[in-house]
């Protein structure tokens, strides 16, 4: 309901949004650094927003059960919404907001990337704070440690490992959606966003394979550099903040040739720390130096504070009410329009799309599960696979879309296979990473017990490996399906050399309504059916399976 209202509100702005032709995109390797910069700064801006958001949202949700009951399901819903579908709506909204300037498109892209990054980071912070051992909290309380000291010594450090890990995932997701945004803008939409995605699409469209490869190489270089210079040192640093006393933490993140480059990383981490620590310390010192502030001594301040709080809460409430009312009004206006005949085809289209999703899911399972099983048997294989999979998996599959589609269209002449392949690229890595993590967490003594009692390889799979990876299989499946729905929107409809290739499905219907007919009602209805299917699948199937699995296959013994 809320989603529908927001959507309708977005589309209301469409009327005000002037048609805007973006800057001309020149496909030349010389301009590549500029495009790379454009993409990177969008990522950075969105990530900064997501970081701030998660550091505010997570601790707030962890403050009380009452907050948690509202804020965590809200994240759940936000996570299950196919972000890509909202991009056109977001463009209309932000362009209108920015009075028709190009800034609006930028804001829309940053907003979209933000939505792909923020939720899992906020959840990570929330979980980290929630799982702080009660003993540690009590120890600080017993020393009479107040708010700031508690934040500095306990809450923030506790968030670090989860936040770093989820940041890595968020960047992977962010790249995926950034490239998607940029491709969409070059393709059917009427706005242009200079960046690597649009460059790749344009190069593919013009058949310039040399430039296409240069663009892919640039993207890969940025991702590898980020991994080596930022993420690897950060994850090593984050290990210090772990609570578990895991004995078998073999370093899996090392890739021979990149180790030399990695030496740069600790330097950067040190530099960042040498800047941050004095700041944190000086705030702490300043706070200790000032005598404890007693607001009760200044009645005016107390009253002003109260008034300010009432005003703030009041204005937020008013804004929410205003937004809701105008959203519902817009929704009703949209729904009052005559319903096109296509609406009747939505159920069939949903089934067609579901079949494609199931096919892609089956292919993903068919290779990731054996991989995980083998990794659990051979630590050497696991050690080798992890860094490679990490690099390959962090390449946004959307960057390969133009290549894949053009290739498959040339070979088969149709879109069906291409569509399944594209969904696959949005699904498989989530499964692989979750399964590998699950396989690596099988306790060594359980493996030893199976060997000691002479279990055959097949019996070990049946009694140990498969049950042990069930929880991670389900977590992986839930995220994979989330990724799949997003990929679906991009994968069923493709414009190449001003010719539209499409298959029959919900994603194609949505794209068709968005880019060709511009029928707000159809966009609304297709998006809503998609959200409905996603939410229903999550509630009725995945959540339940997950609850059963975590109960039965939990690793406590």
């Amino acid at each position, binding site marked *: 309901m809320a989603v529908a209202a927001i959507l309708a509100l977005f589309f209301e702005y469409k009327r005000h949004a002037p048609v805007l032709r973006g800057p001309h995109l020149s496909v030349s390797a010389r301009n590549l650094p500029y495009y790379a910069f454009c993409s990177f700064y969008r990522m950075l801006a969105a990530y900064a927003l997501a970081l701030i958001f998660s550091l505010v949202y997570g601790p707030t949700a962890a403050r009380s059960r009452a907050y948690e009951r509202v804020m965590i399901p809200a994240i759940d819903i936000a996570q299950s919404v196919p972000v890509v579908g909202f991009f056109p709506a977001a463009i209309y909204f932000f362009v209108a907001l920015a009075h028709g300037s190009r800034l609006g498109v930028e804001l829309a892209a940053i907003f979209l990337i933000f939505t792909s990054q923020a939720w899992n980071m906020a959840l990570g912070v929330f979980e980290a704070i929630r799982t702080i051992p009660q003993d540690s909290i009590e120890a600080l309380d017993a020393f009479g440690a107040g708010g700031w000291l508690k934040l500095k010594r306990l809450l923030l450090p506790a968030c670090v490992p989860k936040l770093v890990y989820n940041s890595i995932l968020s960047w992977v997701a962010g790249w995926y959606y950034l490239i998607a945004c940029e491709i969409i803008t070059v393709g059917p939409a009427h706005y242009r966003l200079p960046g690597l995605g649009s460059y790749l699409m344009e190069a593919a469209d013009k058949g310039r394979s040399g430039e296409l490869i240069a663009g892919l190489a640039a993207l890969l270089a940025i991702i590898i550099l980020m991994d080596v210079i930022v993420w690897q040192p950060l994850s090593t640093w984050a290990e210090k903040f772990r609570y578990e006393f895991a004995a078998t933490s073999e370093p899996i993140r090392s890739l021979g040739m990149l180790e030399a480059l990695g030496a740069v990383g600790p330097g950067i981490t040190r530099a960042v720390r040498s800047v941050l620590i004095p700041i944190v310390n000086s705030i702490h010192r300043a706070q200790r130096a000032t005598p404890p502030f007693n607001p009760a001594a200044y009645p005016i301040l107390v009253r002003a504070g109260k008034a300010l709080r009432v005003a703030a809460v009041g204005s937020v409430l008013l804004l929410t009410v205003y937004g809701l009312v105008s959203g519902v009004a817009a929704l009703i206006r949209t729904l009052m329009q005559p319903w096109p005949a296509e609406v009747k085809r939505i159920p069939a289209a949903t089934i067609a799309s579901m079949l494609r999703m199931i096919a892609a899911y089956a292919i993903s399972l068919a290779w990731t599960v054996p991989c995980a099983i083998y990794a659990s048997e051979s630590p050497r294989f696991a050690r080798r696979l992890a860094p490679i999979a990490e690099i390959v998996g962090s390449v946004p599959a959307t960057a390969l879309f133009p290549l894949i589609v053009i290739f498959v269209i040339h070979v088969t002449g149709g879109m069906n296979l291409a569509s399944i392949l594209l969904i696959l690229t949005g699904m498989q890595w989530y499964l692989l990473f979750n399964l590998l993590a699950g396989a690596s967490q099988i*306790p060594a*003594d*359980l493996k*030893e*017990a*199976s*060997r*000691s*009692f*002479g*279990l*055959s390889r097949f*019996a070990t799979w049946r*009694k*140990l490996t498969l*049950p042990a990876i069930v929880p991670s299989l389900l977590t992986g499946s839930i995220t994979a399906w989330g990724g799949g729905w997003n990929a679906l929107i991009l994968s069923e409809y493709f414009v190449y050399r001003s010719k539209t290739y499409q298959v029959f499905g919900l994603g194609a219907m949505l794209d068709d309504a968005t880019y060709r007919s511009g029928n707000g009602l159809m966009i609304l209805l297709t998006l809503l059916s998609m959200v409905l299917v996603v939410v229903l699948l999550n509630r009725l199937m995945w959540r339940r399976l997950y609850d059963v699995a975590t109960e*039965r*296959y*939990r*690793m*406590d*013994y």
Partner: protein
Amino acid sequence: MALLELNRVSKSFTHAKGALRVLEDISFSVEEGELVAIVGPSGCGKSTMLRIINGLMPATSGQVLYRGRQVDGINRECALVFQSFALMPWLTVKANVELGLEAQGIAPAAREKRANVYIDKVGLDGFEEAYPRELSGGMKQRVGLARALAVEPRVLLMDEPFSALDALTAITLREELLDIWQARDMPVHTIIIVTHIIEEAVELADRILVLSTSPGRLVADLKVDLPRPRDRRNEGFNALTDKVFSLIEERA
């Protein structure tokens, strides 16, 4: 011929900064019917030694002989009991106990019958369908013990079996272990138990092997002549405990 013989066994692990020597030049033998305790400070490689005897990992040099034949791969006449119990959390007590029997290819009916016998023996009658997470620590280790006994091994290998339990539970389980060892109808007569609790070794064992740390060397092989059942307040008991303690301390 000794039932089990270790002949100049050494073990080292290679890691990034070279090799870590864990065991060095260990030789001893175990006769059928003996209860041998291996004690040493943590990190002396005593658990590694147990795994080498079971065949879970190969020795770097030296050999392990079982009935005069070199052990190569898992020795199916041994069964291992773990400190962490190592029960499959998703299998019931009965399914856990049947694990080794299934691996031997025993038919379901016979499997079930034998599992029930050993579940009764360790006093878990009535808990056949429970899951490990529903049991207390002591009960979990009883499952671990039943699982090992069910395969009717010649040698029972125990890796710190009572160290994760509270002291009172550990006392009860030690008494039960001795009962099982002394019972005539049990196929297992030989037990090798690894522990860092010296009193545990003195209370249970016929022989105590004392290991030093980094690398683990055999520093003493003591015969325990105290009459059974042993009393912890007995003078001889305390004298032996002190002796083992000082042996470990002077090497540490």
